[in-house]
């Protein structure tokens, strides 16, 4: 059912990673993602994989949840692996049939790419598991605040993101309600060709839009009534403070980067 979709996928907890400043976590996540792409040798990739494993253990997020976040990318993984195996040729030949050859280089590249994607997804989903959507947008707002120089309304963007996240469950509920009402009037949403099905969505989509706009107006009024005027001069109830552990996290990222570069230098590159 539609109601089962979870977005934001926050996993409530009190681990070190949960308590860290969202700015530090955001910065570290982006940093590590860049480092993943810097990896050239298996040893460098091993180091970043080890980092991801340690991070998962530190977060105390159950492994089941981590695997769940990997489920949607299984198809992508298989697809890239297959493509890499067949399109990269070099080294010893393991298997040959007609025009298809599987070589050492192909297998290595496929493995490398798969591990790379998995680590990428694990690290980025760890960010959303340990940080609430509100903290995330707050952190993003603060990190992007230098862009104010270019007249970009960072606060407005962050507020829009927060509100959009907040209203996803509400709108899902609304879609269900409207679908039921139209089904009760005999609307057939399940059968027919593509065009027919697209047409059948009109009775759902229009009321949804109407109600989304109504909600937006109501929300705007409510926010105005509470003296919301945008980001200018706005203070926070929960001040973000960088603690020693946040600085440590960034130093740690720098260490990993150095390690990856050194390992790249001393071992043969796969990619």
């Amino acid at each position, binding site marked *: 059912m539609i109601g089962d979709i979870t977005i934001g996928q926050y996993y409530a907890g009190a681990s070190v990673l949960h308590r860290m400043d969202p700015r530090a976590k955001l910065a570290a996540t982006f940093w590590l993602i860049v480092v993943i792409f810097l990896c050239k040798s298996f040893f460098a990739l091993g180091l970043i994989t080890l980092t991801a494993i340690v991070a998962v253990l530190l977060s105390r997020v159950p492994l089941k949840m981590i695997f769940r976040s990997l489920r949607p990318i299984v198809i992508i993984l298989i697809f890239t692996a297959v493509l890499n195996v067949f399109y990269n040729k070099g080294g010893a030949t393991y298997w040959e049939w007609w025009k298809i050859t599987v070589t050492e280089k192909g297998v290595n590249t496929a493995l490398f790419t798969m591990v790379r994607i998995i680590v990428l997804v694990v690290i980025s989903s760890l960010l959303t598991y340990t940080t609430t959507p509100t903290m995330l947008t707050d952190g993003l707002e603060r990190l992007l605040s230098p862009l104010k120089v270019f007249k970009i309304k960072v606060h407005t963007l962050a507020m829009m993101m927060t509100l959009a996240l907040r209203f996803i469950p509400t709108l899902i509920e609304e879609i269900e*309600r*409207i679908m*039921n*009402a*139209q*089904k*009760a*009037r*005999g*609307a*057939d949403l399940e059968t027919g060709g593509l065009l027919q099905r697209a047409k059948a969505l*009109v*009775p759902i989509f*229009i*009321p949804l839009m*109407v*109600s989304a706009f109504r909600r937006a107006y109501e929300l705007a009024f409510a926010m105005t009534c509470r003296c919301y005027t945008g980001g200018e001069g706005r203070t926070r109830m929960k001040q973000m403070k960088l603690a020693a552990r946040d600085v440590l996290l960034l130093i740690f990222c720098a260490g990993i980067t150095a390690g990856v570069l050194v390992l790249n230098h001393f071992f043969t590159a796969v990619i």
Partner: protein
Amino acid sequence: MSYAIEAIGLTHYYAKGTQQQVAAVDHVDLAVERGELVGMIGHTGSGKSTLISHFNGLLKPSEGKVLVDGVDIWRDKETLRQSRFKVGLCFQYPEYQLFEETVYKDIAFGPGNMKLPKEEIDARVRRAAEFVGLTPALLEKSPFDLSGGEKRRAAIAGVMSMEPEVLIFDEPAAGLDPRGRKDLMALIRSYRAETGSTVIIVSHSMEDIASLADRVVVMNQAKIAMQGTVDEVYSQGDALRAMGLNVPDITEIFARLHAQGLPVPTNIYTVADGVRALQALGGRWRA
């Protein structure tokens, strides 16, 4: 003869198979006679809405059966489809389901899905519109240009135009002012008198139910806690209060008057009944 709607051991679990599994409807047996007007009351979360969503097959029972005209609606696809037309379900705030360019087209959506001939659709739309008191001029307007009360009427007409054998209203008067509420109840009463259809009304308003229902069904914690005539149910004030419900204010007033020694009846459930009782008293008793 079979019942209009019959639920046998109807059970519905939410989040089935997980630790949060809850029965929203728990082994409910209910039979609704043809032409009967059933009022269904219950605290928020008592399972009323989940129960009625089974009557036209929007929800599939986890256990048990729903029979419409004596036939299990989940027997096959076509039976299920027909049950949607036999049992009209008008949700809370039905005006949020309006979508067509004109009111006419919106009311015609249901009959159109029934694949009726054009003339029949036209006749039904006009009949339903007249019934809810929408003038022919309004039919050509956009539903989004109507007033709140008119929108509600247009949406109700959209369900009535399918001319279902059973019409179910979920909180039909929610958000209406007292006048609109009264008009709507009068509309439901005359609809039923004219068409002889079976009607089920789900409401929080004990007074609305008292003025309309032949039979009252009280839901509490996913089960039917009580059922009977208005008199039989409303006389059990303490049991109702224990379920987070209350008797109508007017009943409370008459109970207190009675307790203070005034010779008034205590089975007063609507203001109209109250006025009558006081008038009958008028000649005999002076303060």
